[in-house]
């Protein structure tokens, strides 16, 4: 909040009514060179990633790593518990019975990988985030229902109160408003 009593500006919010227009608009915002901006849509719009220039997330590699760790934990745990720390013979099976260890090792792989996918997704998306300037906008409530939005942040190096506004107005949205921080 700035000292003169007026709240700092978060940025501008442009509303679109359909998928085609937001993809087209996103392409132009990207080409203009903005970096601190985002689209908000009620569902994942295919083609928007490309239009925004979003690169593939590294999430799959995190999940792969976690899965491998889960597998090793599963095998290691069973070896340590049944073949090393307290070895005892059951139904004539070897202390360390790999075929019998596969199911649990598999479940551990999936468990670790799935949890990492979920937590990883939330973490990289910085969720939960209960407070966000965009929630101030009454109009923005429809971003989770049936409207499409582009938000350009005032922190963007290219941001200029008037030029940006003029540019955003030229995108052909159905409405445009200023959002306070």
């Amino acid at each position, binding site marked *: 909040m700035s000292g003169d009593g007026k709240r700092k500006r978060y940025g501008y919010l442009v509303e679109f009514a359909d998928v085609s227009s937001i993809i087209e608009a996103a392409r132009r915002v990207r080409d203009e060179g903005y970096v601190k901006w985002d689209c908000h849509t009620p569902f994942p719009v*295919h083609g928007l990633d490309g239009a925004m220039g979003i690169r593939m997330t590294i999430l799959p590699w995190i999940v792969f790593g976690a899965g491998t760790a889960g597998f090793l934990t599963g095998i290691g745990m069973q070896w340590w518990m049944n073949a090393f720390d307290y070895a005892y013979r059951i139904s004539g*099976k070897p202390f360390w019975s790999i*075929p*019998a260890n*596969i199911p649990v090792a598999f479940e551990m792989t999936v468990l670790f990988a799935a949890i990492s996918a979920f937590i990883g997704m939330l973490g990289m998306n910085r969720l939960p985030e209960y407070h966000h300037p965009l929630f101030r906008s009454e109009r923005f409530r429809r971003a989770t229902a049936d409207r499409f939005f582009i938000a350009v942040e005032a922190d963007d190096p290219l941001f200029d109160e008037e030029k940006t506004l003029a540019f955003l107005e030229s995108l052909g949205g159905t409405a445009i408003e200023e959002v306070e921080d």
Partner: protein
Amino acid sequence: MHKEIRAVGDNRSTGELSGKIVRFGVILAAVGAAASLILLFTGTGAERFFRSYLVNFAYFLSLSLGALFFVLIQHVTGAKWSIVVRRVAEVLSANIGLLAILFIPMILGMGYTYHEWLTPDAAEDPAIASKLGFLNRNFFIVRWVVYLGIWYLLTSWFYRGSVRQDETGDILLTLRMKRLSAPSLVLFALTVTFASFDLLMSINPRWYSTIFGVYYFSGGAVGAFALITAALIFLQRCGRLGMSVTTEHLHDMGKLIFAFIVFWAYIGFSQYMLIWYGNIPEETEWFLHRQTGSWTPVSWFILFGHFALPFLGLISRIPKRAKGALAVGAAWVLFVHWVDIYWIAMPEWYPNGVAFHLLDATLFAAMAGLFIAAAGRRLGKASLVPEKDPRLADSLAFENF
């Protein structure tokens, strides 16, 4: 729209490529067959010949059946992405006709391959005697006539229907194929199960496993998907299908190979683990042969080569979208699938250790040559894509996300 023009561009026919493929196949077959016959008559003897023959027959049969499965499953699900790759699968499945002819030597060799239940001693063995009503020469041949007849009818019906649509564009054909695909899958499941019991499981008539049919099927499906993929990439290298089959379709083929690698491993593990755990001598005998002597490294090779390596190799989307890597993967899978079939059959005759023989390779070459020639000939006869399929546009425009 531009996509449609691409489908009917000049890459829809093999043109003179077909002749080249056929020539290559015929030469390979001739060399392979000549070498095999020389080996047969210069001291190796019929026993080894027919055993190698059975392994290679079971291998190529599994590929054609896997291709038939691919075709049926696309019809039954009404899949759209796969239209542009379906023709290649149809052509490969139609090789069943060739395999029906190749089955004749199998009958001649039964005395060497199924001697366990064909010998008069079998009647003395209580574990075998009770099933001689099923396992006997005449009934075996009758069953195979039925299996091959059913497969021939199915493959040629679906192949011809698809080709006819190229000319007429009749969308009712699509519907008819869709309708018939479901009962066809039922027939397919039953025939493949019993065929696998007859062909491979009965080599050791004492041993039995209820999952065996699914195991043979899963391996064949992996092999067939790999073969379809390899064929698509090969045709693209030869300047065909360049516009209609895209990275997206190859990516999906890669996913199918990956999925069925996992499925195969699941079925294989279920069979192994349950028999290992139950530890009943009449069942463990089968795996014991494969864990004895030089068969042990082969078993390990299958575990790593048929599962771990392709699993890790194909898990990422990068290799699935890179033509070269995918081609290597497909070739590898085709190879390990052959080893798998070899490993199913051979230890029952040679329990003491791997007895690789040059005949294994020469007969492979002979059958591969015929298989390639038959496929090449058929590829030349029709378009490389089902060009009037009503869903073709969807398939061409298909994209993974």
